[in-house]
């Protein structure tokens, strides 16, 4: 039993040892971190209330602006009008189709970007030659709006789904790769050295030390990669028009513009925004929060 003391011969020593054990228990009790979950009502007040109030405020200001007659109805539709466009779309059964067309494309493109960006990032981060060769290009590509690729993609690939995916990849791959690279660069050398003394080098070092240590940076890259995918896709859908492509959110928005349907345009913008935020809130934020929390990088109340 490890908890039994190595009892010294004389009584004084044994009392001293017990003393030490008691001291130790006291220190541990003092040090213990209290972990408790935030109560549900508090979560409601702290996390749900602020954004809901913000949305309500925007709606109120919008409605007031309409009532004050700042702009004609053809330029600034009332919230009600946008709401009824929404209901029409919903009743026609088109709403979910339109959203799903874009979301499916966006997510598939994003997954492909992950599959490409991850190995690219790994190689660039770990191979000095490759890094000097394409590292600067990779970070430069991040500042090139991927909509700039649309004309080229359309000519190379035609107005097809492939062109859409190409534009998504060109937007998202660099940010995913760069996220992984900066994640790896920021791994404290101490972890790598600790790993080496434990016998983790080469592949097992990458698997057990390097990649887990780089995860927060990688996740930040994924999050940004999603934002870039979604943005690129909307731009591509707006510009490229073909019956083969079906109607996604970007196409819907452009159709509304062609019909000068201002409530429809507002609805399109709002839907694009809401879907982008929803994917972030449903997938990336929880993932990121979980990873940061298990590492003690954010407090539980946040």
């Amino acid at each position: 039993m490890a908890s039994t003391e190595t009892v010294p011969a004389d009584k004084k020593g044994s009392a001293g040892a017990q003393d030490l054990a008691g001291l130790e228990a006291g220190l541990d009790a003092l040090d213990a971190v209290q972990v408790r979950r935030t109560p549900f009502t508090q979560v409601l007040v702290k996390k749900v209330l602020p954004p809901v109030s913000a949305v309500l405020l925007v709606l109120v200001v919008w409605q007031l602006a309409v009532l004050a007659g700042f702009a004609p109805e053809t330029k600034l539709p009332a919230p009600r009008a946008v709401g009824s466009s929404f209901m029409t779309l919903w009743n026609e059964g088109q709403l979910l189709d339109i959203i799903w067309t874009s979301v499916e494309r966006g997510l598939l493109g994003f997954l492909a970007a992950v599959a490409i960006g991850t190995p690219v990032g790994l190689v660039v981060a770990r191979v000095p030659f490759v890094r000097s060769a394409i590292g600067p290009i990779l970070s430069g590509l991040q500042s090139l709006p991927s909509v700039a690729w649309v004309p080229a993609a359309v000519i190379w690939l035609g107005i097809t789904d492939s062109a859409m995916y190409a534009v998504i990849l060109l937007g998202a791959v660099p940010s995913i790769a760069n996220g992984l690279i900066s994640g790896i660069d920021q791994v404290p050398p101490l972890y790598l050295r600790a790993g080496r003394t434990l016998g983790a080098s080469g592949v097992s070092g990458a698997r057990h030390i390097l990649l887990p240590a780089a995860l927060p940076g990688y996740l930040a890259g994924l999050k940004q990669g999603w934002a870039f995918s979604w943005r690129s896709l909307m731009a591509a859908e707006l510009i490229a028009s073909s019956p083969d492509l079906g109607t996604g959110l970007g196409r819907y928005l452009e159709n509304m513009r062609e019909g000068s349907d201002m409530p429809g345009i507002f609805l399109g913008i709002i839907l694009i925004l809401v879907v982008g935020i929803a994917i972030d809130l449903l997938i990336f934020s929880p993932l990121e929060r979980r990873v940061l929390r298990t590492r003690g990088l954010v407090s539980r109340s946040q």
Partner: protein
Amino acid sequence: MATAVRTTEQHSADTAVADGAPAVRIDHVHKVFGRPGSAQAVLDDITLDVRPGEFVCLLGASGCGKSTLLNLVAGLDRPTAGTITVPGGGRPALMFQEHALFPWLTAGKNIELALRLRGVPRAERRPEAERLLSLVRLDGSYGKRVHELSGGMRQRVALARALAQDSNVLLMDEPFAALDAITRDVLHGELTRIWAETGVSVLFVTHNVREAVRLAERVVLLTSRPGRVAREWAVDIPQPRRIEDAAVAELSIEITEELRGEIRRHGQH
């Protein structure tokens, strides 16, 4: 009490044990950092043996090359000249000044990773990790995250992880420097107990003279810039010692004087 202390002035090469191989042999090791133009000799002709089961404290001013020497022994870096051998084979376990636990793993999983990398079969890892945790008196902390542990508890998990390597040699680089005096005192007790139980050889780096005398069987003083073995003392005070023992204080004063002299010598040119 004065007779409890025996000092030896000889170079450590002369004190190398004749019977059997040492646990660590540091043989005429030199370490130079930087390029030929701006080279900086950090270690100069260090020769030092650690006997199997011995507890040696390496003492020296800040920047004298203690960490550099431990890194060389741990195989994280190569000496510029000279050789370091660990005749028992295997990789020495190294405990860093900072706990160096992996924050993405729980306390228990940190230990299990060390076991896994050592090749311990999956089924045996969990019980072995639990055993090591209770060895450092942290039963029940298996599932704790690193940030949920206090500084002292982290160092104990780090000690358990180092012990999980099951190496004959344990290298410790100022592991308790950042802790408060009482916690450090408790961990000194733990370390001497574990050292006695496991029979591991310990090379312990510190710049705290009392800590060195509290723990070691032998204290080795290094000079600064470049680091050389200046002098060594055998500590014959019986364990369990307390840091406040008169004999510990007495030897500490003597060693501190010597250390001051070493440092003063640098001011003279």
